């Protein structure tokens, strides 16, 4: 027989006291165990974050970075972009259209970009979510 908390014999009468002891002890121990794990994981996260920040600060600054030259957009006609749409969204849409133009041989023009009625996530966030949730 295994050691047990209540030191009971093998045949146990299912009295209300015993049932209550199982339920209360079970709940309390499960919660205590997992709360300790919460505290530990939170502490670990903070510690690792602190250490990685320190590491970044100690790294020598990169002086050799060359700023990216501006694209030659003199001939391009800017589409009408409604308020609140990020530049990165415009870049992604124009890049996709440029890729389509190149493959089809047709010259496509983007005239306007406007928000849909339903709120959407940022395209990069959506792509990230889809990538992360793919295994499940």
């Amino acid at each position, binding site marked *: 027989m295994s050691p047990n908390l209540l030191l009971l014999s093998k045949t146990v009468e299912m009295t209300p006291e015993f049932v209550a002891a199982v339920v209360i002890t079970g709940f309390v*121990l499960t919660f205590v165990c997992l709360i300790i*794990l919460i505290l530990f994981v939170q502490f670990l996260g903070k510690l690792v974050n602190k250490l990685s920040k320190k590491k970044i600060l100690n790294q020598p600054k990169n002086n050799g970075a060359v700023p990216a030259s501006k694209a030659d957009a003199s001939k391009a006609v800017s589409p009408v972009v409604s308020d609140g749409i990020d530049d990165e969204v415009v870049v992604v849409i124009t890049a996709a259209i440029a890729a389509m133009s190149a493959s089809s041989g047709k010259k496509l023009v983007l005239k306007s970009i406007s928000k849909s009625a339903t709120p959407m996530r940022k395209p990069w966030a959506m792509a990230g979510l889809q990538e992360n949730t793919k295994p499940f």
Partner: protein
Amino acid sequence: MIYKFLQTLHDMILESGIYQICNGFIADEGYKIIIMILISFVFMYLAIAKGFEPLLLLPISFGILLTNLPDAAMYHSYLFEGNIDYGRILHEGGLLDILYMGVKLQIYPPLIFLGIGAMTDFSPLIANPKSFILGAAAQGGIFFTFIGAALFGFTAQEAGAISIIGGADGPTAIYVSSKLLGGGGFDVETGTIALAAYTYMALVPIIQPPIMKALTTKKERLVRMGQLRPVSKTEKIIFPIAVTVVVTLIVPSAAPLVGMLMFGNLLKESGCCDRLVKTAQNELMNIITIFLGISVGATTTAEKIINPKFGGVIVLGVLAFSFGTASGVLFGKLMYLATRGKVNPLIGSAGVSAVPMAARVSQKVGQQYDPTNYLLMHAMGPNVAGVIGSAVAAGVLLNIIPY
């Protein structure tokens, strides 16, 4: 010559299963064998045609078929009663007797946990450790069902084995029930517990949504949760070691399950044992799944299934799942209030384990109200916390209930 032929034919008919079923159809309850064979067909249909947990339900159902065919002599329940003589099983036992030793000696469930650990990504839990609370809360199904089992008149060991169904974790249910019911002489068998557990796990998408919708408001179901922070490799490596140490120090009985789960995860996260990880995830996991399924199915003989107590197990099993879901969602609501609307209570239901199906259900129900709401990664936190939580709860049950 003709006489010899007829004599041989006569002997063969007398030895055949058809004769034995027909001969003892009423007197020796041969009709029960036919019912059991039909039950095995139903489970095979559910596994193959409906896709209900086929990886386990199919081996289990075939085990039921093999054990109930007269004189197949592949499994002998009497060999596992009282003080088990394992030497005798090796000499006299059939194939399924020998495979069942892995269940009786609690070898298979921890090995399955090794494979699960090697396949599980704990990042969502590490990124949001508060999910642990939901994993603990959903274990309410286990402990509330213990009360129900007591009211149904089950013994302490039987009640413990039935209530662990609420953990929605097949290997844990088999581990706990084989330990608690190991002494024999009970009306409930490990096979019945496993059968109920896996059937209800397959029914998670049907059982959970009505409870989730009943306990939450539309406003709560529409909550969008913030992006999870990225988790570093160091955290992922330290996590399994820390969980093993903390859980084993508090609940030593949970060590075989939690220890192997975390060992598998450490192999994966360390990045230095690719060959071992591949074996744990694939070959080992698949071999153990076959052994476990078919041998557990073999224990479900007619006398264990066709009795009123099995009806009690079925009723309590669904109650266990429902209570677990409800307590997870209710704790999710508490977190919603405590964080002023930053936590979607729907992720609470994923705390019942059943990885990753319960998390998928949270995602699906959330998307019914907002198709652009992605709750899956947030629900994976409580989901994997539920695996740890159910292993801890199992350890607690084994500690309190004598066996």
